């Protein structure tokens, strides 16, 4: 309960007051980004740093399999954070988010494969294009006051439209796909500028990106902008009546979100080295990337990460379990693995939605008393 947690708060801790904006709090705010003592209990802080240490050390003790799964988890967490900014912070449901990821991926991939532009530079045009398209969708949607379900369908429509256009764009390979050159020598080394290297490097890149997105999201949610977003999310008319420029701040939400998604897209392109319109822009991709934040808890900071840490290993576990049951002769060899895995996975998601409709993270957080204040 909120009251009990208030009492536990130490007198010296920085007050997480609703009115103090990020800029006004100066250096203490900068410190608070890394030591969020105003929000987290001691348990929470220990867990947070334990978690970061766990992430950072994973390649040292884990097998290459752990590194691969970990990379996927962190990538899902990054995209989840991006999507969560739109829905969880500003209340804008996007079901075509793969569009922004795909645009970032294709832009950086195309510039690299055609002009040899390294992704360190390529990320700028990639983000620019993602943000541009995001702004167009946002502008059209908000200007014509397309809200709720209709806005979600508008994002799907744009994503599908782009997918079909990409099928026909020969300069990016069309349906044949766009391939990034990989030299055998690159596999062993670490080349951060060209984003070529071994899986451990990709793991750390994904980790840094995911943590950066988390810190950015935290800065945003505690800033004036973040409070405007939450006001718009909770009651758009009331926010407008208070003088918030609803159109502008909704645009900012789409732009920030699509920028992060664009960065994620660059990572996607250089991690997989092949891009196909169907598997990049497809609606399955869009749905897939919404799962982690929804399962983790929409509107929370750790929800997307937590959701990713539940879902990806769950899928891997089901794969392992089926393989195990097959080798033990308990189920028929001819049973198709993919269908069964998705079946169980889908049922698990259904269960989570039904029994933890606020997501898993708020429940877990309250269970361990990680947070000082509810709802952060």
């Amino acid at each position, binding site marked *: 309960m909120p009251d009990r947690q208030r009492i536990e708060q130490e007198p010296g801790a920085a007050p997480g007051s609703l009115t103090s904006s990020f800029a006004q709090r100066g250096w203490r705010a900068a410190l608070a980004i890394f030591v969020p003592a105003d929000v987290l209990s001691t348990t929470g802080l220990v867990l947070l740093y334990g978690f970061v240490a766990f992430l950072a050390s994973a390649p040292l003790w884990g097998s290459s399999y752990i590194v691969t799964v970990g990379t996927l988890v962190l990538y899902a967490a990054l995209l989840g954070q991006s999507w969560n900014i739109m*829905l969880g912070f500003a209340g804008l*449901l996007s*079901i075509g988010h793969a569009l922004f990821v795909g645009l970032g991926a294709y832009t950086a991939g195309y510039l690299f494969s055609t002009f040899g532009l390294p992704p360190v530079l390529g990320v700028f045009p990639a983000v620019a294009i993602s943000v541009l398209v995001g702004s167009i969708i946002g502008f*059209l949607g908000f200007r*014509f*006051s*397309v809200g*709720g*379900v*209709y806005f*979600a*369908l*508008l994002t*799907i*429509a*744009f994503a*599908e*439209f782009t997918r*079909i*256009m990409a*099928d*026909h764009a020969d300069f990016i390979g069309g349906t044949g796909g766009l391939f990034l050159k990989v030299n055998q020598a690159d596999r062993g080394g670490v080349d951060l500028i060209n984003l070529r290297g071994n899986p451990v490097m990709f793991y750390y890149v994904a980790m840094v990106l995911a943590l950066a997105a988390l810190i950015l999201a935290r800065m945003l949610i505690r800033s004036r902008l973040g409070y405007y977003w939450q006001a718009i999310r909770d009651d758009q008319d009331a926010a407008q009546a208070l003088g918030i420029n609803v159109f502008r701040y909704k645009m900012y939400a789409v732009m920030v979100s699509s920028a992060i998604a664009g960065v994620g897209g660059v990572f996607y392109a250089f991690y997989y080295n092949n891009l196909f319109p169907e598997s990049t822009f497809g*609606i*399955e991709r869009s*749905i897939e990337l*919404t*799962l982690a934040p*929804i399962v983790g808890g*929409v509107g929370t900071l750790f929800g997307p990460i937590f959701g990713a840490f539940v879902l990806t290993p769950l899928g891997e576990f089901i794969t392992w379990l089926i393989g195990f049951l097959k080798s033990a002769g308990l*189920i*028929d060899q*001819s*049973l*198709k693995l*993919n*269908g*069964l*895995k*998705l*079946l*169980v*996975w*889908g*049922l698990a*998601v*259904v*269960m989570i*939605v*039904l029994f933890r*409709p606020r997501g898993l993270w708020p429940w877990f957080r309250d269970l361990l008393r990680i947070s000082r204040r509810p709802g952060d």
Partner: protein
Amino acid sequence: MDLATIGNAIISGLLTGLVYGLSALGLSVIFGVIRIVNFAHGEIMVIGMFFALILFRTFGIDPLLSVPLAVVVLFLLGGGAFGSRLSNIVFADRRRPWLISGGLFALGFAMYWLSGHTLLGSERHSAVLNAFIDAAVTAGVVFFVLAGGLYGVMLKRVAHLPEHMQFLLLAAIAIVIVSGSLLAFGPDPHGVDVPYALDSFAIGELIFDKTKVYAAVTAVLVAGLLLAFFKYTATGKAIRACADNYLGAQVVGLNVDRLYAFTFGIGAACLGAAGCVILLIVEVHPYLAPSYTLLAFVVVIIGGLGSLPGALLGGLLIGLSEDLAALWEPSFKSAFSFGLLILVLLLRPQGLLGKASH
């Protein structure tokens, strides 16, 4: 390109469009009343298609004749799923709705699975018996435990969840249906070879495919029955009352939960009929489902979400645009529909025949 080619494309587009319209009616009814966007739309329709396929392959029943059966089965499935009140609708038993609807769901899925295996798995020689046991055991145990517990509470709650949770729940159900169909029927497409498959009516140079004509006529018939149901029957009027004013409907004593379940059942029944009918034109495979979901979204938004004549009009327009775009460049046919969708969303978000919401 001569006039006859264009004329034929228009005819074919309009006939297909009527079937699209029928399928979109299912989405529109559910949204219009319960305010849920059914993201498992195409998936439910594919269940209808497989249902008709099974009847055709096993008993030789023409897909058009299996329409009434599919309507009944999918009505019960959809209504039961929504309300946890299958027992209520059918048995008037309030005591164990979870057990009954969950059990029926498990039974239904086991049958679905078994029929898929026996129907299409005959080329697997020694594994057939094995598959039977697997299917029965796995379907029985997994589904009774998981689904039996879940199914009863599944969709009834959905009306009270926030939008994104509805979307996720239905998307997850869609994943379950697609992967279930994949397990039961495999990824290969299956069609029906009705005796009149290649026949056509001809008026001058214009050609009407018999399959498309029959499909369209059936679709119009079913859609007409549905519209009449809403206009003239007491239940239909009650459902419209729920849609117009939820609180008012409760105040005058309508059982809104039951009507919602009924409506979801009707939506699913539409998809059952549309699935049977469309099987004449299209070969069925599990991955068909997501594209039909998208197609139905496009159709209803163009026509107006929640408007029944709008769904039919949208179906006609999309059918027409697909066939005309195919004349020009076949792979562009759905790009055209999505372009049209974006235009409608921006210029007339409530759709061509929809009522403005505010």
